[in-house]
């Protein structure tokens, strides 16, 4: 009869191990890997790697196909200390998955290495209903909804672009929305800036915006920033957010947002409109061009109406 020691030794012959730092590096580089937490659901709930899907050991062979649609995708397995997942990894190798890696030292070592973890707060009954259509989408699901609820997005401008963006992000359950605008609502805004209503004329846009967004989805923590973005406040503000949406209406701000996002390593979701035309793109530092690659210098005053 084989001992546990024999089984582990056998598994180690075919399953390579990687430490927390190596796995963290793969994840940070955006590598397409599937991370599976094979612990029991209660262990998972108490804290796990953000990228992980929970399939407890007993169900692994049955459900691995749902987490790994393309068998050639490298799979990283982990448990609490790295033993259960070693045996689990051997089982996946036996099923024919070509690249299966065991997280050496498991979740415990990951935490000891000071790497980030997330803890799932249970969704309320209302949330389960509100986001039920998201749960039906395999690309979103329960895991994606939790990601949205944990995410922090800064909206620069609560005007023509910021209004629809803010409404859709709040509806989708983005957990924290920073709403930044120094203007007050004017009657001429109302034909397109759908965050604000006639009763809001004269009020700060972030005030009416906050009220509209909270009414749409009380889950969302709206942070009202009733000020213009400036060279003096931008770095301090964007550091608290995962992502910036530029809905500003002038070139000065756009260059400022571009430069600050690049320097802070934040992705900038850019949009602009004029009359019947518009454009949108994403500036992701290190992954693609920035606004200055597109427009090295601002257009001369007078060329483009503002």
């Amino acid at each position, binding site marked *: 009869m084989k001992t546990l020691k024999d089984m582990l030794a056998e598994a180690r012959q075919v399953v390579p191990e990687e430490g927390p730092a190596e796995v963290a590096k793969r994840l940070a580089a955006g590598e397409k890997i599937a991370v599976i937490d094979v612990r029991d659901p209660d262990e998972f709930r108490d804290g796990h790697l953000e990228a992980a899907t929970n399939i407890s050991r007993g169900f692994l062979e049955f459900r691995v196909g749902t987490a790994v649609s393309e068998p050639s995708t490298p799979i990283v397995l982990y448990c609490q200390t790295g033993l259960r997942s070693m045996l689990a990894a051997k089982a996946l190798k036996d099923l024919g998955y070509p690249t299966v890696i065991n997280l050496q030292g498991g979740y415990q070592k990951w935490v000891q290495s000071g790497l980030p973890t997330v803890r799932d707060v249970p969704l309320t009954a209302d949330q389960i209903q509100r986001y039920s259509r998201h749960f039906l989408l395999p690309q979103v699901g329960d895991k994606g909804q939790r990601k949205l609820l944990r995410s922090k997005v800064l909206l620069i401008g609560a005007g023509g672009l910021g*209004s629809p963006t803010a409404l859709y992000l709040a509806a989708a359950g983005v957990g924290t929305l920073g709403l930044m605008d120094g203007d007050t609502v004017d009657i001429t805004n109302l034909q397109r800036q759908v965050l604000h209503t006639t009763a809001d004329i004269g009020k700060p846009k972030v005030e009416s915006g906050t009220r509209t967004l909270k009414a749409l989805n009380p889950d969302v923590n709206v942070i009202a920033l009733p000020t213009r973005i400036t060279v003096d406040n931008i770095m301090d503000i964007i550091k608290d957010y995962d992502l910036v949406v530029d809905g500003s209406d002038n070139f000065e701000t756009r260059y400022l947002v571009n430069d600050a996002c690049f*320097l802070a390593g934040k992705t900038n979701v850019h949009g*602009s409109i004029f009359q019947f035309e518009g454009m949108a793109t994403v500036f992701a530092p290190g992954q693609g061009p920035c606004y200055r*690659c597109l427009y090295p210098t601002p257009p001369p005053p007078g060329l483009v109406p503002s």
Partner: protein
Amino acid sequence: MIGTIQATETVKLVLGIGEPLIGRLLTYDALGMRFREVRLRRDPKCPLCGTSPTIKDLAVHRNGAGGACDVSADGHGEAVAAAVTPKAGG
């Protein structure tokens, strides 16, 4: 339309799904009801994200007008800029 595209891109980026508009400029013409896509490349001469950047902090913005006016225009980016006029409005 553009605002909802920004919202969709934001959700995709948060979830890490699909193909975000990185390196692609999507233009929208409401009257013709046409979308166009322009490939964008990183400019190695970009003063911010190029190989030898001259902008290393936000000091240029203290001079007003995006501070970008003192950056010499040497023609890079013109092809795209000519195809797509920057939009002023928000």
